């Protein structure tokens, strides 16, 4: 299932190292409303575990976590 069409905002964190993908996402998600979807593109290999942990702590649901070559893609739904 793909939910790309429902994405409100995209954070391009490609090339940024830890913890900036999370930091940029956390800042961006503040601007969204509850239930809005955000897409994150990242190349930081630690980001996969970080987004799982961040989602668990903040309650923003990690809807998708995929990888295409060196680019990780996450979709989150704001709590």
């Amino acid at each position, binding site marked *: 299932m793909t939910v790309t069409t429902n994405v409100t905002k995209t954070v391009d964190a490609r*090339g*940024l*190292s*830890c*913890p*900036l993908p*999370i*930091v*940029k996402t*956390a*800042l961006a998600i503040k601007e969204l409303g509850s239930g809005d979807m955000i897409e994150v593109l990242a190349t930081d290999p630690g980001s996969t575990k*970080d987004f799982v*942990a*961040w989602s668990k*702590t*903040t309650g923003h649901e990690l809807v998708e976590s995929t990888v295409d070559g060196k680019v990780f893609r996450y979709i989150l739904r704001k709590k």
Partner: protein
Amino acid sequence: MEQNLALVLFSGTDDKLNAAAVMTAGAAAIGRPVHIFLQYWALDSFRADRIADDHGLAPEAGDAGRRAVDALAAAGQAPWHETLRQAKELGEVDIQACSLSMDLLQITESDLDPLVDGVEGVTSFWLAASDGQVVFI
């Protein structure tokens, strides 16, 4: 998760300050309040006129470490003070200068970068640290 984290920054080299900035930003991202206490050479690196200077690396970095750090910076890695600025934007991050170190360096609050929220003594630091974890870098 509301458990607070206290960082005591002693070292003023860019690698250690970056490690501290990363820890801070990560904690801020999960909603943990962070209290930072700046001592000695770390405080010196927060002087407004020097914050963006090259503060060197810890001795164990060596030449290879220097090249690795330079390569990351050339690839666009944000400097530690920028990461700290973002962490402050994101969450509850309070940065305090150690008053003894202010005396040591013979500086006043106006010499410090606006990232620094104030000056305090060690007693105030321990009160702020409360029963949270304390990390010394």
